[in-house]
């Protein structure tokens, strides 16, 4: 029995996705930047750069540094702000027949709630991804993301003002990611995405200075995959909501590993920098793998790891 066209569709907290491969916030601009390299309608969904009420200029430079098998970034959540997003970015989103998920953050619970209200009104935004974990900006949510009670309060405040699927993106910089996950789900998260970047640092020996102007930065790329995979596996066993696996996914094998560990969907981040077509290539590779391995429906792989 050979499979001609495997079923790659998944349902993410009510959003039907044609396949489980999405792009990760901050690594794919607002979608348009990559339209030359990717057929956006070949991937499952795309996630915007993290949005805030006011535009943000971001951190001083250098903002980027390569590390063994990974990279650090300290962009500082630079973004156009919600108004410009609506005015300048949504028109493009409208032209693409692929779900757009808006990633956002705030400095306070009120700002988070206000952002949720604003995004809730945008029909082109099918789901909201709350970044409670960005390590770069001191007021950027680090407190929310590392304390279960704080996380619960901000998630509850956002939950109260939207019916759209609410995805909470978890920080890996915690002792107990499962406790964080439970707190967010109990507070109303429809889905969890993980991991955001780890906190890292690089030093320029010649200059005797940190490489990044911000001193520390968010660590991403293939190097972090083992940590991400472990956390996804732990969280997927502990909560009932769908999980989005993120962290160092470079190819279909990586993506399928996350799915086996319990992820319903995955996000491709740093890989898009190295290969702007990464997300689409991964979709194609997964499909080929399913055909070769006689897997008719990708949903049968979710959490199928035998431990």
């Amino acid at each position, binding site marked *: 029995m050979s499979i001609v066209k495997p079923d790659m569709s998944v349902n993410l907290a009510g959003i039907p996705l044609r396949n489980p491969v999405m792009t990760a916030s*901050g*690594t*794919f*601009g607002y979608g348009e*930047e*990559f339209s*030359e*390299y990717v057929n956006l309608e070949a991937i499952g969904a795309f996630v915007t*750069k993290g949005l805030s009420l006011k535009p943000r*200029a*971001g951190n*001083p*430079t*250098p*903002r*980027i*540094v*390569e590390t*063994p*098998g*990974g*990279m650090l*970034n300290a*962009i500082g959540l*630079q973004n156009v702000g919600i108004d410009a997003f609506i005015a300048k970015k949504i028109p493009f989103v409208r032209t693409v027949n692929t779900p757009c998920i808006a990633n956002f953050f705030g400095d306070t619970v009120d700002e988070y709630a206000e952002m949720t209200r604003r995004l809730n009104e945008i029909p082109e935004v099918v789901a909201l991804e709350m970044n409670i974990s960005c390590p770069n900006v001191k007021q950027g949510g680090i407190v929310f993301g590392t304390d279960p009670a704080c996380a619960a309060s901000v998630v509850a405040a956002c939950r109260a003002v939207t019916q759209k699927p609410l995805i909470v993106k978890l920080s890996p910089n915690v002792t107990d990611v499962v406790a964080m996950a439970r707190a967010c789900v109990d507070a109303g998260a429809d889905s969890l995405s993980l991991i955001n970047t780890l906190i890292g640092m690089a030093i320029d020996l010649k200059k005797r200075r940190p490489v990044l102007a911000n001193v520390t930065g968010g660590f991403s*790329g*293939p*190097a972090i995959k083992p940590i991400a995979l472990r956390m996804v596996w732990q969280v997927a066993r502990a909560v009932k909501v769908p999980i989005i696996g993120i962290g160092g996914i*470079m190819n279909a094998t990586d993506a399928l590993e996350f799915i086996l560990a319990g992820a319903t969907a995955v996000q491709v981040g*740093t890989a*898009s*920098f*190295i*290969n*702007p*077509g990464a997300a689409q290539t991964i979709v194609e590779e997964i499909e080929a793998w399913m055909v070769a391995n006689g897997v008719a429906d990708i949903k049968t792989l979710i959490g199928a790891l035998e431990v």
Partner: protein
Amino acid sequence: MQFTSMILSNAEISPGYWRMRLTAPQEFAAATPGQFVMVRVNGAIDPLLRRPFAVFDVGVHTPPQSGAVPQVYFEMLYRVVGKGTAMLSALHETDLLDILGPLGTGFDQGNADEEKLIVGGGIGLAPLYLLARELVTRKSPVRLFAGGRTRDDILCITEFERLGVECYTATEDGSLGEQGLVTEALKRRLDALKGKATLYACGPDGMLHAVAKIAAQYGIPCQVSLEGYMACGVGACLGCVAPGKGHSPETPDYRCVCTEGPVFESSDLKWGA
């Protein structure tokens, strides 16, 4: 555009400086001076990120044998400074590389009759050759001012001369051309021209800053090509930004080097930020 490119040649042209010629698709012929490519040095994860290099030259080669198809190629001039460039220098003819480009906004060539003064420091000459070639094609008068620490840092002068460009050189150790900074010769020429000229510059920060100051002093337009640590090269990561003229720590104003640049009007930038 993303494409797999075959190396046609890769040679050390001066100690530590290499010139590589690579195949490119037809459409690459439209690359403009100042644009760059992002090179994936190899398929492994070390190095992970692509490396940005200016388009040094672009052309079409028709192999001599009959029936051969014309092949678009481009060239890069690069300096071995770290892991990625060291690996590039170890590659051979017929090896393949994954290339993204041409990327970015290049030089504005201005009106043809004004004299164009091109200032390059060391590897900063890389994006300036194609510029000079285009300017010469448009019949602009062009002069090159090339500086470096030592004579090994003065690259491809013969190529510029072959275009008919008058070249001035200066080295800090006096091993080639004038001893000192090439900006001195630039100022003399500007004095002679009574400040009617357009400046183009690429090189180390100190040189660019100096050239920007000279441009401001003489009240003439000046375009500089910047470097910046890049992850994506396509405007998505926001890693590569440089402070724009309105920038201050309180009201930051960042320009995206890979899309708005790498070439900027020097007066649009904040210097010494």
